[in-house]
């Protein structure tokens, strides 16, 4: 059951009603049952994997917590990490590694084919695996004690709003909430419902709309000219943001309605003025996870190389981040690009800061605007390898075409498509621009007038019905 399915629109209100009718002490148990149902509903067999990860995490966190010997703690943690990563590795990276080794051996005239696995990736595995790992490491670091109640650990890792696509939450934030009082909070309910609505708008209207255009172009790179590819490249980050950002908002909103606070996952990324600023605003839960559990230990170990140690740590972290997104060479290129961008920024940081301060540039609108645009362009180009193109060759072909193929005009299906797509992007940007630079001024959702608030809600719902892409029925007639 995904958030945009019709079933979820029935499932979620039902869960909420029962949740608040039940006495407080039963609520977390009910959430656990609902989460189980939610996940099993997708594909029962994959629920076994989730259960295995939960069991591993529960047993080993208890073992780590139960011993005083640092050596044994370490051994337990290592076994736990290996066991937790095993399903993820098997399902996500087995074929990738298998193909790579096969090709490598073949160049040495060795043939040793292992069977290919053609199973689908169990949905959410990349997310709950990271949540489980984070929890185990937190217990090892004595940030939190190991949870003794198995049900709470199971709920933390299978919590239905987060299990499919995050935010990748942390045990120190979630466990106390599940164990504490899950009480009705009017303010949170309203906030949650507002976020859900805005999340659906982002996903169904903006992401799907933009996605239709972007896919039509990137699925047929050979047939399109450089201008169309350039437009698609510019639009792709908006699609990804509206997609994952919208999805995250629905997730965070669902949790909020039930009174549970979940971390923010995106913070208006397109207003970032540098790449390092961008990565503090984009997919925050993943990046902060990687910062804490991968980058920090690496940077610590390389600290005697000073700034170059940080560069190495950055490169490794972002290549790993790339691989987390997908088992494909393109993502390694993508991760390397991010690492290079951030390293260049780290190396030039001092000089840039001095320059900015000297001319007081942070107060100047044109400077912030230029920086945002430049950051956006850098990210958009890196995203050619971050999911837009299917292969590295296709990615390079895209770039080559953008700079050399000036034939013809920008492709579009019909004027209606341009109008609808532009309106949806415009609404998103206006709302975010207001929130970024004119905080606290006129607000639709937070307006003191009930009429304004309700009309805004109604407007969004009507917009979703009017121009949302509700299923695959939208037909792009692309001739080639």
């Amino acid at each position, binding site marked *: 059951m995904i958030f945009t399915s019709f079933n979820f629109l029935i499932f979620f209100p039902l869960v909420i009603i029962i949740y608040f009718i039940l006495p407080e002490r039963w609520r977390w148990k009910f959430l656990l049952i609902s989460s189980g149902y939610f996940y099993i509903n997708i594909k029962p067999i994959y629920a076994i994997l989730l259960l295995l990860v939960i069991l591993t995490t529960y047993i080993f966190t208890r073992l780590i917590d139960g011993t005083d010997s640092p050596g044994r703690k370490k051994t337990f943690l290592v076994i736990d990490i290996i066991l937790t990563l095993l399903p993820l590795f098997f399902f996500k990276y087995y074929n990738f590694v298998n193909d790579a080794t096969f090709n490598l051996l073949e160049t040495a005239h060795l043939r040793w084919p292992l069977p290919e696995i053609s199973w689908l990736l169990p949905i959410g595995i990349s997310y709950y695996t990271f949540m489980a790992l984070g929890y185990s490491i937190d217990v090892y670091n004595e*940030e939190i004690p190991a949870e003794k109640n198995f049900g709470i650990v199971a709920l933390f890792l299978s919590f239905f709003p987060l299990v499919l696509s995050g935010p990748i939450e942390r045990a120190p934030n979630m466990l106390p909430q599940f164990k504490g009082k899950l009480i009705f909070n009017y303010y949170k309910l309203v906030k949650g419902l507002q976020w859900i609505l805005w999340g659906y708008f982002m996903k169904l209207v903006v992401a799907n709309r933009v996605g239709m255009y972007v896919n039509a172009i990137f699925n047929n790179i050979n047939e399109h000219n450089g201008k169309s590819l350039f437009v698609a490249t510019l639009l792709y980050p908006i699609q990804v943001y509206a997609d994952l950002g919208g999805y995250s908002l629905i997730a965070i909103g669902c949790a909020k309605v039930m009174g549970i606070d979940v971390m923010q996952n995106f913070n208006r990324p397109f207003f970032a003025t540098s790449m390092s600023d961008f990565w503090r605003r984009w997919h925050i839960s993943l990046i902060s996870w990687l910062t804490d559990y991968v980058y*920090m230990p690496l940077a*610590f170990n390389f600290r005697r190389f000073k700034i170059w140690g940080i560069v190495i740590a950055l490169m490794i972290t972002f290549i790993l981040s790339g691989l987390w997104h997908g088992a494909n060479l393109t993502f390694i290129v993508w991760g390397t690009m991010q690492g290079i961008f*951030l390293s260049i920024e780290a190396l030039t*940081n001092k000089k840039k800061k001095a320059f900015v301060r000297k001319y007081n540039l942070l107060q100047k609108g044109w400077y912030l605007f230029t920086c945002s645009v430049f950051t956006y362009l850098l990210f958009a180009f890196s995203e050619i390898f971050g999911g837009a193109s299917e292969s590295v060759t296709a990615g390079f072909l895209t770039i080559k075409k953008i700079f050399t193929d000036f034939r013809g005009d920008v492709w579009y299906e019909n004027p209606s498509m341009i109008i609808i797509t532009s309106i949806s992007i415009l609404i998103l940007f206006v709302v975010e621009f207001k929130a970024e630079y004119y905080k606290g001024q006129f607000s639709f959702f937070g307006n003191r007038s009930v009429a304004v608030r309700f009309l805004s809600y109604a407007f969004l719902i009507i917009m979703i019905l009017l121009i949302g892409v509700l299923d695959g029925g939208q037909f792009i007639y692309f001739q080639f």
Partner: protein
Amino acid sequence: MSKELIIEKLTRVFREVFNNDQITLSNEMTAQDVGSWDSLSHMIMIEKVENTFGLKFKLREINKLKNVGVLIDLIENKTTC
């Protein structure tokens, strides 16, 4: 080493690493309070502190640094024993 001396030396490290001569340390100070204190400059600062005070941190100790006060206590512990 006395606490005053530690704070004095640490202030110099902070001002240099974070490129800001106005920084005055307090126990409750966190990364949020210093503009350029991010995950990149953090490790540079740690390395500089190690060099200045001639000590070595463990990763676990770094993980537990919640604010400047904790760092000062940690340095004090490490330099006295």
